[in-house]
């Protein structure tokens, strides 16, 4: 059957027959880098048109419907427009930091791609502290936002960046605690091991109440971490024009825009990996017949299906809920999510020690 891992093995053997092992590795790294950039471009196009269609249907509108069949090429046309626009740097800005910020946002998103398992045996880097690496690297993204806000030399940008800093720093706590709940059950930080532990059922089903509570807290916290509505205070169109990227135009703006969508994809992929079993098909205990039927669906389909379901949920949040004020936002984190996730982690520990999970 067709699968990503077979393609990867074929490329490895093909290169190995022509080059020695060092050059094979270098060539594979280049191929992987190009593939990741290609995936970014594709994700940007797909997620933007998906967001616009979802928002339109939720708001009883039609959405883009002129460019291409049913408007599906709209995001391609928008990308072309952004590519030919001038990327201006304001006179009063700190030029070096101003131009560096969008690239840091993109590099963080690229680094986060490394430990994600896209299909069975198809992963860039299966390091043994995968989940720790993800939580550590994802917090760098706040630096790019602060850098953009500071370097723009604009009050709106700086206000947006400071809000975003407060928001990401506080919501990382409950996102981390929610991830920790699953780590308690699996006892391993390696992404492939976490997925393997879900071969007889996903953690959201196996982990009883703590897993469900952790899943809800995780989804809320990552929505805040990626600066999306209802937590989009960093941008807050109605108050701060566009927040930290007010002064950006052309392709530099597009990089921030792309980084936002890629970050949404990544956090949803992490959520799918931890709670919904990554590429693991839906397996229920010892129903071997049912499990065998589910194995016929390719593992990449399972992964992308779950990830896009979570992306849809986050878009659904965005177009349903009103934006929070900054004090309400911090109240929600420090007075509700953090105490609840601490209690939840205590409960999860008790269940894990007593062996009540399946």
């Amino acid at each position, binding site marked *: 059957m067709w699968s990503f891992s077979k393609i990867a093995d074929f490329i490895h053997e093909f290169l190995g027959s022509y080059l020695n092992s060092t050059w094979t590795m270098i060539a594979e790294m280049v191929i992987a880098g190009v593939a990741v950039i290609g995936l970014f471009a594709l994700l940007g196009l797909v997620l933007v048109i998906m967001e616009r269609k979802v928002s339109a249907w939720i708001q009883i509108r039609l959405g883009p419907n002129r460019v291409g069949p049913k408007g599906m090429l709209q995001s391609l046309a928008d990308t072309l427009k952004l590519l030919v626009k001038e990327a201006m740097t304001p006179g009063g800005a700190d030029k070096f930091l101003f131009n560096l910020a969008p690239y840091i946002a993109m590099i963080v998103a690229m680094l986060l791609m490394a430990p994600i398992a896209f299909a069975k045996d198809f992963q860039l880097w299966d390091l043994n502290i995968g989940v720790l690496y993800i939580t550590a690297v994802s917090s760098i993204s706040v630096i790019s936002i602060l850098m953009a806000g500071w370097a723009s030399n604009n009050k709106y940008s700086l206000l947006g960046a400071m809000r975003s800093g407060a928001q990401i720093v506080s919501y990382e706590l409950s996102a981390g605690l929610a991830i920790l709940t699953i780590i308690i059950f699996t006892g391993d930080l390696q992404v492939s091991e976490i997925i393997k532990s879900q071969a007889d059922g996903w953690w959201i089903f196996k982990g009883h109440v703590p897993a469900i509570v952790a899943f809800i807290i995780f989804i809320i916290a990552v929505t805040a971490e990626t600066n999306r509505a209802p937590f989009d205070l960093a941008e807050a169109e109605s108050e701060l024009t566009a927040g930290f990227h007010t002064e950006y135009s052309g392709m530099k703006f597009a990089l921030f825009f792309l980084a936002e969508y890629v970050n949404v994809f990544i956090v949803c992929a992490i959520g799918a990996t931890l709670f919904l079993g990554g590429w693991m098909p839906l397996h229920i205990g010892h129903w071997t017949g049912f499990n065998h039927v589910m194995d016929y669906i390719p593992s990449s389909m399972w992964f992308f299906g779950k990830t896009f379901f979570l992306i849809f949920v986050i878009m659904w949040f965005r177009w349903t*809920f009103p934006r929070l004020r900054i004090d309400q936002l911090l109240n929600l984190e420090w007075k509700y999510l953090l105490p609840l996730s601490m209690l939840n982690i205590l409960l999860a520990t008790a269940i894990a020690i007593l062996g009540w999970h399946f």
Partner: protein
Amino acid sequence: MFITKYIKDVFGALKSLGVGMKRTLYYFTHHKEIITEQYPDNRETMHLPERFKGEVVMPHDEKNEHRCTGCTACELACPNGTIKVVTKFEITPEGKKKKAIDKLVYHLELCTMCNLCIVACPSDAIKMAQTFEHSVYDRNELTKILNNPGSKIMDGVE
């Protein structure tokens, strides 16, 4: 007590968020609810809401009769002087003098479609039409005379 209020808050929040998400999911899955009109493409089949206010018109029946008595209630009600009622005196067959309208001048370029004249009219002589393509090349074309030439007041309207 504090702790019961806290727990109530959490569950109440989850419930109300769920209600909102249920509503938007309904709209997401029911495309027949979409209210967008693809206007220039569907000029013939376009559906406007019943209470859409495009411009003030005076309906006439087939005998070229209207219901306006010339009471100037609409002129007084109009906040920005859009309507001017020019009256004249007609001699009725019994030989009595009776007030009637000569012209009801309506300045579309001043009108804000506030509907106050229609509310003020005691005899339902004027109403809002659903036309909205009002662009013209000359501003004078926007000053309209609402009563048809040679029209009379309907019998029985006082």
